[in-house]
């Protein structure tokens, strides 16, 4: 215990240096960061409260009574519950996520293939990815939502707006997600392919058992990031008339002439996305820790 002498002071304190890099967690650091946060928030709040139109804005956007009314809804008065409408968003993105994971993987594997037989498919998927990423999502939603019913086909033209909306989301997001998959696949070292093929595994077996499992592990954080974005973008389907959270908020504001419903919708979306965002960050940190540990060996 008496070893806490001068020699240790003379040595560079690596732990302290690291904690400085990562953010000082000493008590003084906590006090300082808390104080600065409080000051910043107080200044922002003061600006908001002292602005000339503050009372007006608070009444139109943050009225607790209207927020509650928008949350529970009143169909007889001509508006629906924003909370209930959110259920449609949830269903849409769950279905879309599953489909996107499948379509994106198929597209990525086709684009990554080398066989001459698959060349036509490679061309088609390449064009698809370019187009689907290049056209704004809102236009894809309009194209499917108004175009497919107008074709007057059986089944295809008789779906609800939500179905067209999900189709548009899948079309757009699968292109992005296929690129994420592709990055993951090419991130697996070539020597892994050589090892798999040298054992007599076919190209598809190598992909399935050796490459994809490693690729997918690496791309979970960017995939989740895309899904956070997807959760919000389900709100765009309201443009086709589906009563999802954002559309319900719009109906409320049209009826009651108060925008607090939009704040309710925003809060509900945050409640959905923040846990996923935290989870993604957690995975990224864990991944970094694993990489650091690996590099140290």
């Amino acid at each position, binding site marked *: 215990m008496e070893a806490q002498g001068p020699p240790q002071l003379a040595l560079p304190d690596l732990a302290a240096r690291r904690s400085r890099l990562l953010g000082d967690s000493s008590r003084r650091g906590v006090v300082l960061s808390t104080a600065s946060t409080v000051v910043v928030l107080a200044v922002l709040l003061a600006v908001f409260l002292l602005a000339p139109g503050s009372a007006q804005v608070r009444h139109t956007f943050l009225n607790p009574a209207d927020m509650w009314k928008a949350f529970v809804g009143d169909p007889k008065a001509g508006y629906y519950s924003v909370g209930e409408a959110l259920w449609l968003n949830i269903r849409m993105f769950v279905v879309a996520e599953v489909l996107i994971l499948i379509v994106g993987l198929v597209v990525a594997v086709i684009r990554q293939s080398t066989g001459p037989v698959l060349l036509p498919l490679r061309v088609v998927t390449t064009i698809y990815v370019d187009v689907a990423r290049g056209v704004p999502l809102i236009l894809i939603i309009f194209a499917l939502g108004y175009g497919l019913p107008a074709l007057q086909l059986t089944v295809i033209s008789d779906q609800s707006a939500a179905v067209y909306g999900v189709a548009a989301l899948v079309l757009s997001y699968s292109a992005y997600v296929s690129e994420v998959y592709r990055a993951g696949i090419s991130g697996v070292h070539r020597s*892994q392919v*050589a090892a798999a*093929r*040298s*054992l*007599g*595994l076919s190209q598809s*077996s190598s992909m399935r058992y050796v490459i994809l499992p490693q690729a997918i*592990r690496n791309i979970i954080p960017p995939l989740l990031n895309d899904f956070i974005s997807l959760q919000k973008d389900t709100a765009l389907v309201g443009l086709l008339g589906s009563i999802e959270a954002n559309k319900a908020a719009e109906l409320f504001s049209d009826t009651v002439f108060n925008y607090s419903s939009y704040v309710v919708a925003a809060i509900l979306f945050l409640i959905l996305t923040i846990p996923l965002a935290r989870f993604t960050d957690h995975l990224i940190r864990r991944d970094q820790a694993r990489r650091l540990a690996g590099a140290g060996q």
Partner: protein
Amino acid sequence: MTEHKTDRTSSADALRIQGLRKSFGAQEVLGGIDLSVAQHEVICLIGASGSGKSTLLRCVNLLERIDAGSVWLDGQLITARGVDENLVRRHVGIVFQSFNLFPHMTVERNVTLAPMKVLGLSREEAAARAAELLGRFGLAEKRADYPDRLSGGQQQRVAIVRALAMRPRLMLLDEVTSALDPELVADVLDVIRELAMRGMTMLIATHEMGFAREVASRVCFLADGQIAEQAPPAQLFSEPSDERTRRFLRRITDAGRL
């Protein structure tokens, strides 16, 4: 090239290479290799880095497409058009300098994957085969570990076991000790020594001259993309006939590696 002496003459050879050429872009790495390996023979390939040892092994495993020449495995021309490379690779095991174990699989799964998916063995059969081999090379208790929990030497031994689990007729070893810490080299060399004793036909690219001298039936010195000299180890190491071999061995001796 013109005559196809596939059956009689070469059936005695485990491996026969004729006129093999391989270039990467403008750089010719192998400029006409001729080599015959008899059954149960252990051939060590020596030579400076970049002399084409690894490329030669990768060509035999069909991991590289050759530009010219022919390779026969047990009398069968494997470089012909239309040959199923996956079928060839079942019979030719290769072990790499950098192990290349599958990091997301346990040791056992690394070893059983190919026997199950390529040879169609059941999980039990493959596991039994893996257990037998892992036990033989002192890795029995590592069965359920992931590769990153193993030392370099253990990983390389698992990689050898993974290749052996396919019961290959020919093993290609590509500088399998070069990435190991010196104290771990001996364990891996012991494994190879045992394989040689059991009669495994092997083509070994190596920098371990002492080992080559001890285990090889024949040593081939590669220089400028060709086999400059080949002879039994005693002869090649003590009275090399080619000037390039002499220079190479002198440098090795000066570095204290022989």
